[in-house]
């Protein structure tokens, strides 16, 4: 018990993600910017997205992304993984991924198909054992979902 449980959460690979986010450079051209703050702990994310929609509205994809995140390890790791997983994906797929990710955080087992879609985001499954930290893992996905929602509402 104790630290054993902790090692299920803080896996080395997550710490790597947290320390070396690939997409943390601000975009020069962007369509949406979403800023979210977790007020209880101070996690802050500014997510910038540029969409590619030259193939018709059904085929809109995330063309470029930047996630400027400052906060705890879980949050930083989740931010880094999210950007890698959603880049180049269709918006409808990202929405499904977010739903699957939330299911996972709530402790539900995922179908193989969903696991495949989420890729390394499934490394965060251990967060479901730490209810106080679910918000940390969820925040970047909430940000990307909000960017998509705004795009779809034509804002």
């Amino acid at each position, binding site marked *: *018990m*104790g*630290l054993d*449980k*902790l*090692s299920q*959460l*803080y896996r*080395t690979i997550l*710490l790597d993600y947290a320390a070396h986010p690939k997409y943390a450079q601000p975009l020069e051209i962007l369509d949406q910017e979403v800023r979210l703050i977790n*007020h*209880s*702990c*101070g*996690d*802050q994310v500014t997510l910038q997205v540029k969409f590619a929609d030259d193939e018709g509205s059904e085929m809109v994809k995330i063309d470029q992304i930047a996630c400027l995140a*400052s*906060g*705890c*390890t*879980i*949050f930083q790791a989740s931010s880094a993984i999210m950007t890698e997983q959603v880049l180049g994906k269709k918006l409808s797929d990202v929405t499904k991924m977010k739903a699957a990710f939330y299911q996972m955080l709530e402790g539900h087992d995922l179908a193989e198909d969903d696991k495949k879609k989420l890729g390394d985001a499934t490394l965060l499954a251990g967060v479901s054992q*730490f209810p*106080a*930290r679910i918000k*940390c893992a969820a925040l970047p996905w909430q940000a990307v979902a909000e960017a998509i929602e705004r795009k779809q509402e034509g804002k």
Partner: protein
Amino acid sequence: MGRSWTEIREDFPILKSKMNGQPLVYLDNAATSQKPQVVIDAIAAFYQKDNANIYRGTYELSQRTTDLYEGAREQVAKFIGADRSEIVLTAGATASLNLAAFGYGLPVLRPGDEIAVTAADHHSNLVSWQEAAKMTGAKLVYLPLDLGGKVDVERVKKEQIIGKKTKILAIAQVTNVLGTNQPIAELINLVHQAGGVAVIDGAQAAGHLPVDVKKLDADFYAFSGHKMLSQTGIGVLYGKKKLLEATRPLFFGGEMIEEVGLTSATYKKAPYKFEAGSQNVSGAISLGSAIDYLTEIGLDKIAAREAELGKAAAAGLRAIPGVRVYGQGGGIVSFNLAGIHPHDLATALDTQGIAVRAGQHCAQPMMNFLQVPGTVRASFAFYNNEEDVSALITGVKEAKEFFHGLR
């Protein structure tokens, strides 16, 4: 010689429980305190024997309930050296501070007036006054703090920061992040010389040290019951009689009125005009019971014990390389471990059964002042012990080894 701290600890049943399979080490007392059996019993006994609505019944049971509720008001008054007519029972310190800001502040503030606050204050104090300032055109003025978060009184005097324009001073007696005991007696004196009024947030002070509002000469004094052994949803706003008369009620309805016509009504005198609707009777009774319990131990002894534990924890933490202690006052210690986000450290402690708070502690301006995204805060109560101090220090060491081992 009263009972030993070991015996007193036995009064708190939750301290025998476990968290994450480990014995619970509860170090989040500044967020809410645990409850002794006598308080829990008082609440149960009330519902088993005495429950009716107050003021309204024409029967004996209701009269008994009313006596219990008013008895609690009397206990609160005695506890802080006030008269019972000066004690408004509220939902908590936040409700009390909002009543001071919007019931008293709003009608008296004019454009250009100043409200003196500090960056070390809790959002419940700060944000209420921000809103009152926005609505009236008054201005917030931040008092200078030294590195320990304490108001620099000399600078306040020298630069006349509290002056003719200061209508209100709103400040915590003890701050919630660093446990700083502010020099409120001096500040109250300054604001009175300027012709202003002092609103003191006593949420971290009441129940932790002796409070005498008359000696302090506070104009308003707010605190919560749940941070001093009673249940949530009950709190107090003390106000000087004249000031309470000048304060407008924020809630209107049953039992706060005197006479009601079709288009207007007259209100009861303070404190009753502030207590509209059915009140939190079990809360008041639990507060009265907590006051009896605390008084029996002695507030001086409690203050000394909490400071003793807080100091021991701060010393132990400082001895760990990589730990930075931002401050310690009373039972409160705020710190960080280099390279580890406070939330990650708190989770590592959680798995070891240790409950601390991590983050901004409802004090974002204070985090900016300390130039950190957040801190870990351990807050000790008199029912904690040296083993809890050791558990925290060992817990932080183990967390440090764990996180460093991952690199």
